């Protein structure tokens, strides 16, 4: 059973549910061609972002990858701005310039994501240098996929983070695939990522069942030490599973690289019904109703927002 109070369970459930429903709605709308942008959905992977971000303070930072809707929402990013961004509207979180792959909401401490695999890992080092100098005990959570751990920059970054004892939580969302290629066809020893990370002098944790509270508890345990400077960086590998296709709204279990048998244990272990069952039914219904309202409002906001004016093409090239 989770070491979490009712308040936490409520918050965690609301966040998981909001991400799931938001993305299901994105998938529903997508075939209407209102979202003319590649979307990499996190459906099935929500517990990683929620487990990590629920443990963070509001003034901590988080950022990650093009599969970033979950991180953005879990960290408290504005969902109206997110939906409007997917629609390419002027009111989007990056004003229609970045789209789904480059989300950021600085007011809510969601730092930008990137479409080039691995590129935000070293960026987190720089944020962490600044946070360390600031001396307020703030940290940054940097999300990545398993593919990123093959890039040279990942290893270069780990070394530097350990060397400078930087307050970075490296979060690996290991869904076992890079596009359609399984990790075993890309890494000689795919089940030893944590062990490799440890050799850099970084404490590494592995959660194999996507348990949102386990992930959160690792954070809750490590964060005070990081904030006091007793710990430098930490690394959390979370096993998880991408339910939909790599990019786009559909399922792809008929394409041959994986099967619904592979999916099944993850659906059985879906954290959303699991956490829902911990709540009083009325309470749950109230949260669900609020989520529906919020997602519907985000869609309405995106629909009625204007597209960027022509001059916006040239704004923000230079600061």
């Amino acid at each position: 059973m989770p070491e979490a109070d009712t308040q936490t369970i409520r918050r965690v459930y609301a966040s998981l549910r909001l991400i799931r429903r938001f993305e299901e709605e994105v998938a529903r709308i997508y075939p209407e061609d209102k979202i003319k942008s590649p979307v990499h959905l996190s459906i099935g992977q929500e517990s990683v972002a929620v487990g990590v971000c629920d443990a963070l303070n509001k003034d901590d930072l988080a950022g990650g990858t093009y599969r970033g809707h979950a991180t953005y929402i879990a960290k408290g990013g504005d969902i109206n701005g997110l939906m409007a961004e997917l629609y390419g509207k002027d009111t989007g979180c990056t004003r229609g310039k970045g789209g789904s792959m480059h989300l950021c909401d600085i007011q809510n401490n969601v730092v930008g994501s990137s479409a080039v695999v691995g590129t935000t890992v070293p960026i987190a080092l720089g944020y962490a240098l600044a946070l360390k100098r600031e001396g307020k005990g703030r940290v940054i959570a940097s999300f990545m996929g398993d593919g990123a751990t093959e890039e040279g920059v990942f290893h270069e970054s780990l070394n530097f983070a350990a060397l400078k004892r930087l307050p970075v939580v490296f979060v690996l969302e290991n869904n076992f695939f890079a596009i359609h290629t399984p990790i075993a066809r890309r890494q000689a020893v795919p089940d030893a990522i944590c062990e490799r990370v440890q050799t850099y002098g970084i404490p590494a944790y592995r959660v194999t069942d996507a348990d949102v509270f386990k992930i959160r508890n690792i954070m809750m345990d490590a964060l005070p030490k990081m904030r006091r400077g007793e710990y430098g960086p930490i690394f959390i590998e979370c096993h998880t599973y991408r339910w939909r296709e790599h990019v786009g709204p559909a399922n792809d279990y008929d394409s041959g690289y994986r099967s619904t048998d592979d999916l099944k244990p993850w659906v059985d272990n879906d954290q959303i019904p699991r956490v829902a069952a911990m709540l009083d039914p009325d309470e749950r219904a109230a949260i669900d109703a609020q989520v529906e309202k919020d997602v519907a409002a985000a869609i309405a906001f995106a629909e009625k927002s204007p597209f960027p004016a022509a001059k916006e093409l040239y704004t923000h090239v230079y600061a």
Partner: protein
Amino acid sequence: MSTLKTATKPAPDAAGNTGGRVLRYVDALKEAVEQEMERDDKVFVMGLDVDDHKALQGSTRGLLQKFGPDRIFTTPLAEDAMTGAAIGAAMAGLRPIHVHIRMDFLMLSMNQLINMAAKAHYMYGGNIKVPLVVRSIIGKSWGQGPQHSQGLYSTFMHFPGLKVVAPSNAHDAKGCMLSAIRDDNPVMFVEHRLLYPTEAYVPEEQFELPPGKSRVVMPGDDVTLVGISNMLVECLRGRELLADAGVSAEIIDPIWLSPLDTDTIVKSVKKTRRLIVVDNGWTMCGAGAEIAARVAEALGPEGKFQVERMGFAPTICPTSPSIEDQFYPNPARIAQAAHKMVRPKAGEWTPDPERAVLAYQRQFRGPF
């Protein structure tokens, strides 16, 4: 390579060439690689996702089944090291084709490409060759945005030791690919996502399309339009719009950007005295700037001509379709620029909006 036919005839349908059968760009690419892999077992393909069921947007379809996993394989996500590995394999006598789904990812390969591949033959005193082909695809539309849309060939044109080619049609894709594979130097082979479904007549047999000759794709008298990669297609459409207004444009495809044949362009400009280069990248320090400068140098003091560079707007590519549309030259804008150059006193002219529609881009639906 004397047994090979060298293509001399214009390729696109527009030029009336009917040799071979109609093939899509993507299939022509694949056919060229397949035929070379059959001919020479030193040729192999590596790169992220070249062997999955989507076969890199179709361009490597069937190669795994035919040649097996030793000759076509995916890699870890490790562009820097994989580029080095491809270069090493080429130095050792193999003929690798290293593939990238977007040109933007070549930024992770730069050290190896520029400091090793481009320089090895020279700095090792001619003792080592790097017969490497680096394929990459330029993305466009459907929210490709800042990091999936860059046409970076002019960057590579800067460096002696590299060759650069950007075929604009299926016919050239095949001929240039064959020449690139057989070339003993590193060749940056630049493709465009929106060209993949476009069709042209392509010979079944192998043929070469080596560097050395730009092609006059369509003749004209009033203005010379040079289009690079996908922009060649836009120029052809722009030419149709101009014809409605009685302006005759000559269209030139440089095909190979390095080494670059400017003679064909100079000859055309001597006739038209007007040059517009439509680039598939930014104009600043771009391929268009290079072409314009070379024409000016070649024409010398007596060669008065007007010149204009078109290309990406001097900003970042946004994802929102409403402003992304303004980022690229399109047939209407090309035609307007040409019309203004040819008839400066005629005042504002806009082509028929119906005719200006980018039909083939309309068909393109994402996510990729």
